[in-house]
């Protein structure tokens, strides 16, 4: 009978892509939740060293970040190739650490000040001389809790 057309053989039905947006949205939400926006723009190279005895830093709001490393290529003409300190968004000198710590402390509630931790994000190729100077400066400011930020991994990857 003509009413019943025979199904054409060999033709695959089209796969419905209607749920594709859902999948992509799911991925999108995952990334939105799991990642944090970088608060400061790095002007230095910052390749962190590896360590395996690491502890997790909690309480993100109670951390002061000090970055140390070689200026990025765009800034090398102005600042040279020696390791520099970066506080917030700009290059800084050793003497600026004092005011940096003071302003960070002033921005936190008084009872939280003793829990403030300094996270040292130092490039693995930086020299210890500058790091020691920074540590000495922190001791003078009585900011004694520090954390050497490292990636989790084997130490054989350092160098």
């Amino acid at each position, binding site marked *: 009978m003509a009413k019943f057309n025979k199904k054409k053989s060999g033709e695959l039905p089209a796969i419905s892509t*209607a749920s594709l947006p859902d999948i992509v949205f799911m991925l999108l939400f995952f990334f939105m939740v799991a990642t944090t926006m970088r608060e400061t723009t790095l002007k230095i190279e910052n390749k962190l060293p590896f360590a395996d005895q690491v502890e997790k830093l909690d309480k993100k709001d109670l951390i002061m970040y000090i970055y140390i490393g070689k200026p990025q290529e765009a800034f090398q003409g102005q600042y040279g190739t020696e390791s520099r300190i970066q506080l917030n968004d700009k290059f800084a000198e050793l003497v600026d650490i004092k005011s940096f710590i003071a302003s960070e402390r002033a921005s936190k509630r008084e009872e939280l000040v003793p829990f403030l931790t300094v996270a040292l994000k*130092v490039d*693995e*190729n930086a020299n210890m*001389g500058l790091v020691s100077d920074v*540590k000495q400066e922190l001791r003078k400011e009585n900011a004694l809790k520090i954390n050497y930020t*490292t990636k989790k991994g084997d130490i054989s990857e350092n160098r």
Partner: protein
Amino acid sequence: MAKRSAPEVNAGSMADIAFLLLIFFLVTTTIETDTGLNRRLPPIDDQEVEPPVIRQKNIFTVLINGKNQLMVEEELMELKDLRKAAVEFLDNGGGTGDEACTYCKGKKDPKSSDNPDKAIISLKNERETKYGMYISVQNELVAAYNQLRDRRATELYGISLKEMEANYNDVNWIGNKETLKEKIDRIKVEYPQKLSEVQ
């Protein structure tokens, strides 16, 4: 009037829009590393305090030079041997009488440290030392302490220190937190982290 049905909105480009957003977030965000080695800097003392007398055998000197070479107790050493050497030194327990260490499993060499409480690791680096090397050494020394503490914790309570600390910080953990804290403190007293840095 004829009933007009609302035309269906074509949702085919929804995926494109979502992809665009997704790629934007993928590119602009970086997963921040928030792990690291916690340290405490020594406070600056204003008053002149007589430094306590420490016998040479209780000090384990680690020196990193500008060429990233490691010298431990006056001898060149490879980085991979450092952890074992530090464990041997800390766990030596060579003291006698009051200074004896009942839980140490070391060689009891009278020329090495008396007990873990007396044993001090002294770390010195030069200005030219690379930070990566310094972190490697710090990591190995912390690992030596952690290894001994874990061993002691397993011996006493059958659970590693890391798990005990995880339990302590876990809100949902069922058990007495005060006794757990005492246990953790006991291990930290038995193997105190005495790592001094020479400026």
